[in-house]
C-alpha cells in the first residue's frame, strides 16, 4: 500500500516530465531532405520521387488476438513519439510533390541559362540573374518569366516544408538549408553566389 502511495506521484512526475519537449530544427534531417529534392530536381540522382510512404504492415485479415491488439495499440501510440524523436522531415505531401514536379519540369528550360552563366544559385536559395549579357535579347523576357516562376516555386517549397512539418517558423532555416544544398549539388559549370561574389563549379 505504501509503495502504491509513492508510486502514483512518481508516475505523475514521469508523465509530466514527458510533456516538456523542446523541438529544435532538425538540421541533419532537413539537409538530407533538401539533398533528395535538389538532386531530384537537378536530375543529378536517378532516385525517383517516392509516390507514398510504405503502408502500415498491420494485416486486416489477421485474427485479432486481444493481447496482440493491445500491444499493437501501445506500439502505435508510441510510433508518433518515436518519429518526433528521430526528427524526420516530411517532404511527401501533395503540395510538396506538386512543387517538386513543377521545379523538375522547368529545369530543362533553365539549364542552358545556368550553363551559359546567365543565371546562378544565389545565397538565399533562389536563382538570380548573373550575366544578362549572356542572354540573347529574344530570350530575356522568357528568362524573366522562368526566374519569376522558379523563385515563386522555391519560396513555396520552403514554406510548405516548414508548414507540413508543423513548424511554419522553420521556413527561414529550411531556406538556408536549401540555399547551401543547391550550391553543393550544382552540376559542373553552374554558377553560384558565395560571400557576395559569383563562382563557378
Amino acid at each position, binding site marked *: 500500500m505504501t509503495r502504491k502511495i509513492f508510486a502514483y506521484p512518481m508516475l505523475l512526475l514521469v508523465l509530466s516530465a514527458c510533456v516538456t519537449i523542446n523541438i529544435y530544427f532538425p538540421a541533419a534531417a532537413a539537409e538530407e531532405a533538401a539533398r533528395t529534392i535538389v538532386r531530384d530536381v537537378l536530375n543529378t540522382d536517378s532516385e525517383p520521387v517516392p509516390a*507514398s510512404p510504405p503502408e502500415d504492415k498491420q494485416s486486416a485479415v489477421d485474427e485479432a488476438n486481444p493481447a496482440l491488439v493491445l500491444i499493437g495499440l501501445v506500439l502505435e501510440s508510441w510510433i508518433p513519439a518515436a518519429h518526433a524523436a528521430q526528427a524526420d522531415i516530411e517532404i511527401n505531401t501533395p503540395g510538396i510533390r506538386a512543387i517538386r514536379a513543377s521545379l523538375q519540369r522547368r529545369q530543362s528550360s533553365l539549364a542552358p541559362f545556368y550553363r551559359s552563366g546567365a543565371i546562378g544559385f544565389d545565397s538565399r536559395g533562389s536563382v538570380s540573374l548573373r550575366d544578362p549579357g549572356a542572354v540573347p535579347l529574344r530570350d530575356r523576357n522568357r528568362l524573366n518569366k522562368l526566374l519569376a516562376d522558379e523563385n515563386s516555386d522555391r519560396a513555396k517549397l520552403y514554406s510548405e516544408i516548414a508548414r507540413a512539418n508543423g513548424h511554419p517558423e522553420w521556413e527561414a532555416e529550411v531556406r538556408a538549408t536549401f540555399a547551401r544544398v543547391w550550391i553543393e549539388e550544382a552540376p559542373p559549370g553552374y554558377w553560384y553566389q558565395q560571400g557576395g561574389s559569383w563562382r563557378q563549379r
Partner: protein
Amino acid sequence: MSALARGLPATLLSVLPGAALAVDISLALEDVVGPDWRMAAISIQLHSPQAGVADLKLRVGEAVLPDDHGTLHGVEFVCPGLHQADSGWHCKDGQLRVSGSPVGPQSAIWQGGYSAAQGWRIDIRELDLARGRAALSFHSDAAGWSGDLQVLRLQAWPLAKVVGTPGLPQDWGITGLLSGTFRLKGDDLGMTRLSSELVIDRLNYASPDGRHAAEDVVLRLDAAARRRGDKWNFNTDLRWPKGAAYAEPVFLQPGAGGVTATARGAWDGVRNLVRFDSWSLQQPGVVDLSGTGHLDTTAGTFDDLTIVARSDHAGALYDTLLQPFLIATAADDMDVRGRLGLVLHFDAEGIEQAGLDLSGLALTDRQGRFSLDSTDGSIAWDRERSVPVSRMTAQGASLYQIATGGFSIEALFSGDGVRLQKPVEIALSGGRFRLDNFELSGALVAGARPSWQADASVHDVSLAQLTAALDWPPFEGSLAGTLRDMRYSEQVFVVGGGLQIEAFDGSVVVNNLEIREPFGTIPVLTADARLRGLDLHELTRTFSFGRIEGRLDGEINAIRLSAWRPDSFDLHLYSPEQDDLRHRISQRAVENLTELGNGVSAGLSTTVLKIFDEFRYDRIDLKVLLRGDAAEMGGIARSDGGYYLVKGAGLPRIDVIGRNRRIAWQDLVERLRRIQVEQARIQ
C-alpha cells in the same frame, strides 16, 4: 552666325579693290564674347601683293562653343590664293586647320567667296568628325543664311560627346554609324527651318544591368521643322526595318513590314509644350497605334493624350507587348486569338476614358487552368462620368476542366469598379450556373488593389458530367446550391457566406471555404463541410459501389487541398440517430466496404451468406483522419481494437469490422479506384 563674324572679313576685303600697291593688313583682337560663346586671341592677316590677289590667314587661339559643345583650339582659316572676280573675292584652295577640338584635330580644304551681291558662300569638305567624314556648305546673304551638313558614318559615341547628350548613359557601350544630311536655314533672328534625312546603322548598346539592349538596329529618320513665330511645326517619320531591341520587359523585332513611327505637330519653345496633331506607331501583323496629345517637356508629362490601338492579330500583340507586363500573374501564359481595338484618353491625372472593342477574342491558358472562347462586345469606361452599359458575349469558357456554355454579360464600368447590371446565366454540366451579382473594385485605377465580390447559384448540375470533367469518382444525380458572398482579394478567394449544395435528397454545407492562389502553381483550398440527411440509396445507386439504404450525416473538417490533392482532413460519416429510411446494405456494398476498410474482400460469395442479397444494419460509421500521405481510419470502437464500419442488425447479422488503422492515403484511393473499376467491369 553673328553679324560680327560675317561682317569683319567683308569689311577688310572691301579695302583691297583698286589698291595698285602691295597691301598688308594685320588685326588682332584679344577677346570677343557672346551670350554663351567666346573667342580669344584672334588675329587676321591679309597680304595683297597686287590688285585682285590676296592671301588671307584668320587665326582664333581659342573658341568656346555655345551650349557647352566644347572648345576649339588653334583654329586656322587660310586661303593662299584669294582672287577677285565678279565683283567679289573667291578662294578655291582654302585650308582649315584646328589643332584641338572635342572631335580631335581637324584638317580640311575649303572653297568659297564673298561678293556684295551674293554674300558669303563657304564649302568645307572632308572634315573629320566623330571618326567619320563630314562636309559643310554655308551660304549667307542679305536675305538670310543656309547650311547643309552631310555626314558619313559618324560613330555614335564620339558624336554623342560632341553633340552633348547628358541623358545618354556612358556605360551602355553605345556603337553605331550615322550618315545623312542636315539642312538648316535662318536669318538674323536665328534658325527658321531644319530638315534632315538620317540613317543610323548598326546601332548596338547594352546596359550593364541587362534591362536595355539593341543589336544591329537600323533606323531611318526623316524630319522637317519650320518656325512660325515662337513655335516650330514639325513632321517626322521614323522607320525601323532591321535589328532587335530589348527594353525591359519588352523585346521588339520588326517583322517583314518593319516598324514605322510618325509624328506631326508643333513645339512651343516658350511654354515648353509639344502639341502632337497626330502620331502613329505601326508594326504590321502586331498593332497599329495612333493618336494625338500634348507633352509638357519641362515636367515630362502628357496631357490630353489620345491613344487609338487596333490589332487584327491579338495573339501577336499579347506575345509582344502585353505578356511581358503580366509576368507572375495568372495571365502570363496564354494563347490569344482574335481582334481588338482600344481607345484611351489621358488627362493630367491619368486615364480618363477607355473603350475596348473585342471581336472573336479568345484566350486559352497554356496550363489548362482557364479559357474564354470567341468573345465579341464592347466595353466603355469613364473615370468620373456615367457611361453606357458594356456588353460582351462569349461562346463559352472553362475553369480547369469544367467547360461552360455561352453567356452574355452586361456590366457598368465606371470609376474604380465594375458592376454587373443583370444576372448572368451560364450552361454548366447539364444545368446552369447563375451569377446573381458581381462587383469588382480597384482593378481599373493604377495603384489600387483589385478585389471582387459576388453571389452565385447553381441549378440542376449533372454530377455525372461534373465528376467526369474533374476526373473524380463518378457520381450521378444532380446538384443545386448557392455561393454567397464570394470575395477575391490579394490572390485569396473566400466564400464568406458558405456553399450550400442540395444533393441526394440531403444537403451539404461548406463553410470557411478559402482558396489561396487559385491560379498559382500550388492552389491551396481549405474548408469545413457538413453533410446532412444524404440518401445513401441515391448516392450508392450512382456510385457503382453497391446499394446501401438509409441516410448519412457527416462532417469533413479542416479540409486542406494542395494543388487540388487532399493534404489533410478530418472526416466522419455516420448514420443519423433519427433516420426515416430503412437500413439495408447489399452484399456487394458489404464486400466493397470491407475491402475499403481492410484491403481484402470479405469473401461472402464463398459462404452460406451468398444466398442473401441484402442485410439489415444498425449504423454506419467511418472516420478518416488524413495527415499528409497517411490516413488514420476508424469507426465505432470495439473492445478488441477493431472498429465497426457497419454495425449489423437482425438476422443474419453481418458486421463490417475494420482492423487497419493506419493506411497510406494513396492505397486508400487505389482501393476506391479498384472497386469502381471492378464494378464497371461487371456492368
